[in-house]
């Protein structure tokens, strides 16, 4: 899902880059406001976890591959803004140091993968969990579905960016200049891979991550550990 350089026209990639900068600035400000000092290591591990999870390529029948992102687990634990910042940091380092995703495309990738996933995942989780306890079975199911839906939302917006290039930017003889397939091909390819394989894996990663945290760090998840209820974790980052 990391868009390389050249697949988006500069007319698409650069406005997305320009849009990502103030969004990230807001994100960093929100991290300062909502992430307590003792939670900073959790954000660091969470962002690093996202970096490593993206290295676990999953084979797709037909010779392609895809991967989970880990953004939704971070969004559930730390809030959507912190997850957006954390995953963006992972994506920027992947582009600069490891050539995974383009550098001109950093804005597009931060918006598609970090922003869309974190917010969609966070709100799907909150909606499905409702008032159930964060350590309940319902919360684990909510985490799975949030991961599934959010990764597919990211894949969908990536497919829209890809496919729109074909329709917008063609040479005089009609050959595409950047991404080379029409919208419906981009959507069909991206969505089949993520609906059937990478999405369920993101769901499993998210719910296993929640189980791991509730077993080892129940204080991160429980709402009423501290009198007054304003503990950290799920409910303190809105």
């Amino acid at each position, binding site marked *: *899902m990391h*868009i*390389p*350089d*050249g*697949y988006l026209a*500069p007319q698409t990639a650069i406005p997305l880059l320009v849009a990502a900068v103030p969004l990230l600035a807001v994100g*960093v400000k929100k*991290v*300062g*406001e909502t*992430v307590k000092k*003792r939670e*900073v*290591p*959790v*954000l*660091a*591990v969470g*962002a*690093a*976890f996202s*970096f*490593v*999870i993206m*290295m*676990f*390529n999953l*084979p*797709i029948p*037909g*010779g*392609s*591959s*895809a*991967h989970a992102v880990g953004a939704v687990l971070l969004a559930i634990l730390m809030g959507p803004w912190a997850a957006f*910042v954390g995953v963006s*940091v*992972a994506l920027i*380092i992947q582009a*600069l*140091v*490891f*050539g*995974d995703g*383009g*550098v*001109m495309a950093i804005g597009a990738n931060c918006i598609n993968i970090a922003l869309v996933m974190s917010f969609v995942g966070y709100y799907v989780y909150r909606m499905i969990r409702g008032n159930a306890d964060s350590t309940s079975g319902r919360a684990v199911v909510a985490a799975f579905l949030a991961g599934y839906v959010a990764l597919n939302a990211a894949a969908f917006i*990536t497919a829209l960016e890809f496919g729109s290039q074909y329709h917008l930017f063609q*040479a005089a003889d009609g*050959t595409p*200049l*950047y*991404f*080379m397939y029409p919208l419906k091909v981009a959507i069909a*390819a*991206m969505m089949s891979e993520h609906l059937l394989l990478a999405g369920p894996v993101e769901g499993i990663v998210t719910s296993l991550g929640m189980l*791991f945290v509730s077993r*080892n*760090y129940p204080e991160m998840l429980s709402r009423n550990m501290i009198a007054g209820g304003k503990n950290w974790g799920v409910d303190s980052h809105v």
Partner: protein
Amino acid sequence: MFRNYKALWLALGTLIILSPLGLLATGTAFGEWGLDELVEEVGFIPAGLEKLAEFWQHSLLPDYGIPGMDATFSQAAFGYIFSAMVGVILVSAAILILSKIAKD
């Protein structure tokens, strides 16, 4: 940084060791074909794409590998684990710095 979160760092370390599993999926993701793969995968190289594809040429560990060390699976696996470690260090350091900036 580490004291209260041993289990989290241990889990991350385990994932780093297991990361070469990600090398078993050898196919390139949809829409991420390199210039060397486009002719085979797509049939041609779009003109605009060709001009921009090499826009950034300063990746020190391209494709999560150590340049020149890709002859065998174990070499690639070593480069992959090394890349995961470098990535984890860079990402967590960047988060610590950003959080510090955000707090001040």
